[in-house]
């Protein structure tokens, strides 16, 4: 684990070991706030910030704390990071803070964060730990936003409503109505819709993975031309 490649880290966070659709961590906020894109972006940003802060500080103290008090120390770090970010959000994005409500303090209990702190940050140097926090947050966020977009689109027939809550009054007209006079499709907005669409996203990912694997297998199985007899005569120096 000492020799970390950033490429591997990125691939892990975004795809192979995506916290939301592979590790299936943090499902509670994932399902609860993804009714619209703006909520999803808000929670994704907050979670990513917390992940970066907690991973960095955990990595900083990794050689000081002993195993016995590792978890309480991590929990303290995570909880204080969440509280600080909650306060900042209240100060600078008040309306979004009101919308995310209870799910903001609940980031503390998002298993992605303790999982990355204990599983990665506590064994790695600061830079990779911070990067891992960022990329895991982004991986989680991408799924959140995708789910938010799907549900908002199918539920209301529009995308990017109320973006001004996050990006200031200039963003108020970002809303794109794709289908006029759309009869609201309630199932998509209500919690069952969140489960169904999460399932579909996971299924989609598995489908792509299977496709890639099949292609790789086919590549391996195909005999390489002219490689049946390989003669090695002497060294090339």
């Amino acid at each position, binding site marked *: 684990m000492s020799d970390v490649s950033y490429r591997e880290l990125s691939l892990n966070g975004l795809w192979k070991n995506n916290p939301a659709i592979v590790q299936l961590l943090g499902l509670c906020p994932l399902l609860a706030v993804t*009714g619209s894109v703006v909520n999803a972006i808000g929670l994704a940003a907050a979670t990513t910030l917390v992940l970066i802060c907690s991973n960095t500080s955990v990595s900083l103290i990794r050689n*000081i*704390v*002993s195993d*016995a*008090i590792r978890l*309480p*120390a991590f929990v*303290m*770090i995570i*909880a*204080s990071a969440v*509280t*600080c970010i909650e*306060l*900042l959000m*209240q*100060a*600078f994005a*008040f*309306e979004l803070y*009101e919308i995310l409500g209870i799910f903001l303090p609940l980031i503390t209990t998002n298993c992605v964060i303790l999982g990355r702190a204990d599983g990665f940050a506590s064994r790695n140097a600061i830079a990779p730990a911070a990067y891992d926090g960022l990329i895991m947050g982004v991986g989680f966020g991408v799924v959140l936003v995708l789910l938010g977009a799907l549900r908002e689109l199918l*539920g*209301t027939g529009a995308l990017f409503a*109320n973006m001004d809550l996050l990006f200031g009054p200039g963003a108020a007209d970002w809303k794109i109505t794709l289908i006029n006079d759309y009869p*609201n499709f*309630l199932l998509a*907005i*209500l919690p069952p819709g969140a489960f169904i669409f999460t399932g579909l996203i996971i299924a989609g990912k598995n489908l792509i993975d299977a496709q890639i694997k099949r292609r790789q297998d086919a590549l391996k199985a195909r005999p390489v031309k002219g490689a049946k007899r390989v003669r090695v005569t002497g060294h090339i120096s």
Partner: protein
Amino acid sequence: MLGRSIARNSWLLALFAVVTTVLITGTYLLTRDRISEQKRLAEEKALLEIVPRDRHDNSMLDDIINVGPEAAGLGLIQDKRIYRARLAGEVVATIVPVTAPDGYTGAIDLIVGVNADGSIAGVRTLSHKETPGLGDKVDIKKSDWILGFNGKSLDNPQPAGWAVKKDKGVFDQFTGATITPRAVIAATRRALLYVSANDTTLFERPADETVAGEK
């Protein structure tokens, strides 16, 4: 050996507690003023939607009467405030908080603005948990249904008319949701009754005093 490691760990944990507390305290102190400012703005925004700036010249947030759960008819669960809008010292409208306990999914918090002549200046929902796409049309962000109260008063429509059309009233219901509008209509009417019962107190009493006999 064991004792020493326990002592060391305890000190470390204590140190962590101190450091994290300092961090949170620092953030709190830095953001405190801005947060209270934001809260005030959010509160004022709802009030200004009901009584726009050109109708009054005072700060509504500073001209308040406290009301609590005892206030007859308002159905409040916690202490709230009545705000008053003044123009040249005269109260032109009061904004009364009222809670509808009988929403489809729990209580609906509303504010009802009542003009000095007893007509409604505007109604807004402050918080609700109504079904998205159905009951949440009482929220101005979702539908302008709630604007239908503007200009109505206790005798316009007559008491029997204070109901959804399905119940032979004058207000629209939503497709698939009658419970929510019913609750909001009843609560709005209760607010009007409260204002007319406490007319003199609300419109003439100086600021920052509690309503007589209540709270």
